[in-house]
């Protein structure tokens, strides 16, 4: 990420997708695949339409002695440009369904669990203590820091205590609103240890901007260290 930002300092990169932050989650790749696919399809459509429009504007500009064509439509053409976009859009929908289901509907069983509570303007994070269970007395509460192990399925019980917030980790391709009065399950599995930003993505009041936490993804050894440091 650092190298990337240095690269961009020169000016700005015109290839839109090069701005996408590095993906470090197991399912992020599937999201990025769809993102790129739609990018290529829409870019092609944009180029075709723009080229045709500019060409028509030049070729069919008003000139002396030439009258416009008197035509009201063309059924074959109109059917074509109805059916082709419809087929492409439905294909994109069906390709999206399985990824969406995997991320938001059919979560794999938890290997690690945390509870994150959004409140104006911090994330309260509850980690399981040495007993490995969440919701017991030895839970470790830390503000704005989520500590999770690498390569494990992490379940986040997402809550909010006042207004709606949104749990956004750009590098994980995770986003989910936290709603007061609800407990919403978010899951991810991270493949690369490191420190990742966790901004709030839903307007939550005057302190919304800067409501920022960090997700620390630990190797097993580092995770043990984290547990020891936070006991008692």
């Amino acid at each position, binding site marked *: 990420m650092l190298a990337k930002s240095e690269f961009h300092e020169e000016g700005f990169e015109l290839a839109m997708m090069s701005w996408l932050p590095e993906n470090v989650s197991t399912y992020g790749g599937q999201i990025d695949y769809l993102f790129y696919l739609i990018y290529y399809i829409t870019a092609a459509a944009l180029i075709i339409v723009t080229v045709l429009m500019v060409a028509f504007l030049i070729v069919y500009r008003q000139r002396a002695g030439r009258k416009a064509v008197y035509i009201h439509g063309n059924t074959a053409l109109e059917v074509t440009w109805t059916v082709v976009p419809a087929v492409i859009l439905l294909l994109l929908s069906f390709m999206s369904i399985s990824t969406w289901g995997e991320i938001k*509907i059919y979560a794999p069983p938890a290997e690690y669990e945390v509870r994150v509570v959004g409140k104006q303007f911090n994330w309260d994070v509850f980690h399981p203590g040495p007993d490995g269970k969440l919701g017991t007395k030895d839970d470790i509460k830390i503000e704005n820091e989520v500590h999770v192990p690498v390569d494990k399925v992490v379940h986040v019980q997402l809550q909010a205590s006042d207004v709606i917030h949104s749990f956004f980790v750009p590098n994980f391709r995770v986003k989910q609103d936290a709603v007061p009065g609800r407990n919403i399950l978010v899951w991810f599995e991270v493949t690369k240890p490191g420190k990742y930003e966790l901004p709030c993505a839903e307007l939550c009041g005057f302190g919304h*901007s800067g409501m920022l936490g960090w997700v620390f993804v630990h190797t097993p050894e580092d995770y043990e260290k984290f547990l020891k440091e936070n006991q008692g």
Partner: protein
Amino acid sequence: MSEAAASAHADHGHHEPAGFWSHYVFSTDHKMIGRQFLFLGLFMLIIGGTLAMLIRWQLAWPETEVPGMGWVPEPTMYEGIIPPNTYNMLFTMHATIMIFFVVMPVMVGGFGNFLIPIMIGAKDMAFPLLNMLSFWVGAVAGVIMVASFFVVGGAAAGGWTSYTPLTGDAVFTGVNWGINLWVLSLFVLAFSSLMGSINYITTVINMRAPGMTYFRMPLSIWSLFITAILLLLALPVLTAALGMLFFDRVFATNFFLPAGGMPLLWQHLFWFFGHPEVYILVLPAMGVTSDILSVFSRKPIFGYRAMAYSMIAIAFLSWIVWGHHMFLSGMNPLLGTAFMLTTMVIAVPSAIKTFNWLGTLWGGSIRFTVPLLFAIGFVSNFVIGGLSGIFMASTPVDIFIHDTYFIVAHFHYVVAGIIFAMFAAIYFWFPKMFGRMMNSTWGIVHFIGTYIFFNLTFFPMHFLGVGGHMRRIYNPMQYEYLEQFGDMNVFITISAFLLAISQIPFIVNFVWSLFAGEKASENPWEANTLEWSAPSPPPHGNFATTPQVYRGPYEYSVPGVEEDWLPQDRPLGAAAATGH
């Protein structure tokens, strides 16, 4: 014909009211009410645009003194520095004003009023008094909205979407009467829109001139007719939700608060109104664009019926796509799948319209007038805005781009892009509205500046969104991963300033042409629709005698006809031979 019409008018039953108040202020003439809506919208555009400039200043040079704003008292600004809550007010009010007090008054109120009766060959609206009330109730709503800047605590700061519980209780935003007035203003505005829409629907159904069948109506009228139906059905939902929100705030009820109520209920109600609202905004723009492209291509619109049917399809589908604003709201994700499918489907009629516009240009004899340029600008932006919508329709991709600048880029290409159709319509109908032409050289300058800087402002926002830059954040420099976007935010801000400066030629041209523009003839664009058979500007009652309609509105370059246009009310035969 214009002289004949004028003399015929002298003994006509419709008497133009003489007094200043009844002529300019409390007028029941649809054309005056249309002009009033237009002026209201243009005035509010200046306010909404100024708020946008302040937003852009803060994003480019966060927490620095805005030049010339040192006089603003605390706590709104601190020696010209914008504090976070004021920033939230800025974007909330920017969006609210642009949507409800610029696009709706200009496109629906202004052109809806001006065009509907005269394009269908009627003397006025079905209910002229209701029409006048519609404007004045709307003006009261505007006054309430602007007044909300001046109450203690400042204006609404909960976003134009006003999600509960944030807006359900004053403690969460620190804004009390600002949001109450925001709610009241939109509540009042809803009555204005209801009166307008009932009038539009009744007028189109009952007052079409002889021969003006539904499928001989210009697409502008089709679009305004469908828009009126959407307004009639969608706005009461917002009105009811606003009422409940007001009760939550003022009378401590619990409709949308978690203690007994449902925060997501607000979102469902808001977007059930909100998505049809998007089409309420864009359909009239599509309608006027279709008309203008046909006139200046000197060619019938390509696929007229497909254009009308696709607008009807959009109107129906717009009721079952609202959930795509809520994919990540905590709504059941299975519903997300269903809403993704309907959303993908609603893109099809939009694609049909785009291809039909291209088909209209094909084989034409295109006259590069200012209205044509702006209509092309609208199509070009709509294509980008439509295509970027596919990204967020795909639920997995939306997980990443939801609530980022990708969304901001998308809806500005669609909704702010409407301003191109709005300018196209103003340049096109200005001669009919005010009897004078606007200067076309300055119009071209206005177009070039607006088109270039519009794109330089909004296109880079896609890049910000792909980089994960959230919308509605006060200072992007608070985030490590957004530091790289400092330069781009400066670039966007400078482009936005230049976009604003590009509007100066328009303002000067508009005001100058009102008083000193070249006098317009009856039909300066050689167009077919009925308004061009009336004098410029048309008198009270529009037509000397009710026109008889013989054909559709797009008969340009008809073989066997000498000119390349054939007005809807010209009988073919003797009159055609003499050139009318």
